[in-house]
């Protein structure tokens, strides 16, 4: 048992931290968000340079062969700086789909391009009726010659407007909520029949609505009728990274709050000297430490081989992280007072990101119900 970073991990984190401290101040980030794309190609290139784009892919595929823990450590740092580039969609989500579902040929084709920053991925999975159920898929995939054509509407595709390749869940067989018969297809963003409308999300990231109308799939990830297990693995790894990202956000929001409490004076004394507020800040620390613990567990859970065990563990992670994110996000605003309600002050941006983070791949309520329905974590005697 050892929760410290290895030397390699420390080096990796340091290089990311240095880049972000140089290039990702609050005002710099604002400029990236204000650009037409909504993010910075310059930073994207820099991410490629320090190796975080190819991080989780096998060396033989052209990646750096790092483990999930390393990816999560980057996610934590990116959370601390509220990075808006499509790293999470490309490397964490898309990367997991590619690693777990892609053929060797496909991986060897795409990974070097991803690592170089030339290919960006997005997962088009959400549909109007599906909410948080990965298996609720109305979009269809039909055989067409030697390949597949995809038709359907996908919503809230994170970074769907900057992806070069979309990973699309589509139904090959079965009813809309059947767990079998779902395939994962790679569709090029520029393929005929693909219409993409990008928009900004409330946390300052980008997303898209995508309409597919007999769009040809360039590839299928694994078995076209058994994509759900891959999708679940993708969700599990993504949730682990989201947990670390949330801890990064919470750490910063808490630190900003403490700083403010030490300097802001009311009634002739720093507000941090008021015991009721001190206890609130202590409760935030308790929540963050429990969340940090849970994020470590998230890595264990995501790597669990038994899918039921994995699902239960990952649901527990989502519950704990979601609860903590809500408390820390809301209280960091409340303890600041009005100033944190303004767009010009960073704290609110952490609150917003924490709110969205909770909802990605199912919010705490959803996972609490799922976990409770599966009998919880403790086995009855």
């Amino acid at each position, binding site marked *: 048992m050892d929760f410290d970073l290895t030397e390699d991990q420390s080096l990796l984190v340091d290089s990311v931290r240095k880049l972000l401290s140089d290039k990702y101040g609050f005002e710099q980030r604002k400029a990236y968000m204000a650009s037409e794309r909504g993010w910075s190609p310059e930073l994207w290139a820099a991410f490629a340079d320090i190796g975080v784009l190819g991080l989780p892919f096998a060396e033989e595929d052209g990646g750096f062969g790092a483990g999930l823990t390393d990816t999560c450590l980057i996610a934590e740092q990116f959370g601390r700086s509220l990075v808006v580039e499509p790293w999470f969609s490309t490397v964490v989500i898309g990367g997991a789909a590619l690693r777990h579902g892609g053929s060797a040929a496909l991986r060897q084709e795409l990974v070097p391009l991803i690592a170089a920053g030339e290919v960006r991925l997005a997962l088009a999975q959400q549909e109007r009726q599906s909410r948080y159920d990965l298996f609720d898929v109305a979009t269809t995939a039909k055989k067409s010659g030697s390949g597949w054509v995809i038709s359907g509407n996908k919503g809230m595709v994170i970074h769907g407007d900057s992806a070069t390749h979309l990973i699309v869940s589509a139904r090959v067989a079965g009813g809309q909520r059947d767990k079998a018969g779902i395939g994962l297809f790679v569709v090029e963003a520029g393929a005929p029949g693909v219409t993409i409308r990008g928009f900004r999300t*409330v946390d300052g990231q980008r*997303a898209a609505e995508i309409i597919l109308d007999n769009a040809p799939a360039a590839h299928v990830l694994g078995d076209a009728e058994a994509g759900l297990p891959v999708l679940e693995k993708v969700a599990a790894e993504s949730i682990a990274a989201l947990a670390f990202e949330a801890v990064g956000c919470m750490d910063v929001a808490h630190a900003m709050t403490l700083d403010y409490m030490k300097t802001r004076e009311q*009634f002739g004394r720093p507000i941090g000297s008021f015991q*009721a507020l001190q206890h609130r800040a202590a409760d935030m620390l308790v929540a963050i430490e429990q969340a940090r613990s849970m994020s470590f567990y998230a890595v264990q859970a995501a790597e669990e081989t038994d899918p039921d065990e994995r699902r239960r563990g990952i649901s527990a992670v989502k519950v704990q992280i979601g609860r903590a994110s809500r408390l820390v996000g809301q209280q960091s605003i409340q303890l600041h007072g009005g100033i944190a309600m303004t767009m010009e002050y960073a704290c609110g941006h952490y609150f917003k990101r924490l*709110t969205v983070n909770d909802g*990605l791949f199912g919010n705490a309520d959803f996972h609490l119900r799922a976990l409770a329905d599966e009998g919880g974590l403790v086995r009855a005697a």
Partner: protein
Amino acid sequence: MDLNFSPEELAFRQEVRDFIDANLPPATRQHLIEGKGPTKEMVVEWQRILNKRGWAVPEWPVEWGGPGWSAAQRYIFREELQMAPAPSPLGFNVNMCGPVVIQFGTEEQKKRFLPRMANLDDWWCQGFSEPGAGSDLAGLKTRAVREGDEWVINGQKTWTTLAQHADWIFVLARTNPTAKKQEGISFILCDMKTPGITVRPIITIEGGHEVNEVFFDNVRVPAENLVGEENKGWDCAKFLLGNERFGQARVGASRERIRRLKVIAAQTLDGGEPLMADPEFRRQMTEIEVELKALEMTVMRVIAQDMKRRDGKPNPATSVLKIKGTEIQQGVSELLMKAAGPYAWVDGDPDAEGTNQWDVAPDWAYGLAGTYFNWRKQSIYGGSNEIQRNIMAKAFLGL
């Protein structure tokens, strides 16, 4: 003990409801149902309709256009507007500045300002908060110096709600810098067109423009714009703040939002079933409904006390209204956001056309996250909920 409205009060409620149904512009109502703040035009149009009916200034004495209602009627009126939903008469005019002018103003001030306030010919805003004086209002630093027939005002106000619409501002300014905190403050009215006033928007975290900074740079206003006595402005401020006994309870508004939530939850799928079928969602919603019912009764208790004896005796129930009223409103806004799931996250101008226009996402989801973010302010402003607890500990608990 009699816990019910009288038949007359119930008839009055029906009268209000019928009037709203017949006169509220449908576009305004629809706009509010969708959770958007009313535009300036909507507020002005509706207040003038109410004013024509004699209902724009429920709290004012009859001689200045008030309808002469009881506390219960005023409550019913306010609730019905919130539930419609319809815009309320502009609080800065009707509940804040108006009553101060009525209580402390000269006859001339009353004649000059009150009718225009009632008809919303002038839109007023409130110049109280300052960057260094948040919860500690009396710590304000804006100065007003008497020079001949004028006050010369310098300083900065902040969190000035809807100053961008305002024709006038009522300002608390320090007129005696050597007196004790509360004792050197005056209450002064300023035309927003006076040279030296600059309004700078504050964009809140959801992207909206509701509040502003207002800068005063050698702003000269006539001496006659002082309300009440010089250096006694704190009395006006206390009167103004103490006047608001129910404002943040907003029981009708919360009930309207819960209705909206139920409509949405019936249409939205969750696990392939309507969201309303999810026991956990229902539990969270029902807990708020129960708390709201208790709050409604708490409001009734305060009204009943007001009707019986306006002895100004503090009622512990009053303290509950701010804390619970805001917690409930925040809770409902969070449930609305959660009901929308990922589709709440589309950003943009909440007053613009819905951007979920491709029917990939439901239209109604748009802006719900923004409202959730924005409503975090409710437990901060108007005396933060922490300040409320301090007050309770002192005033009612003797701690």
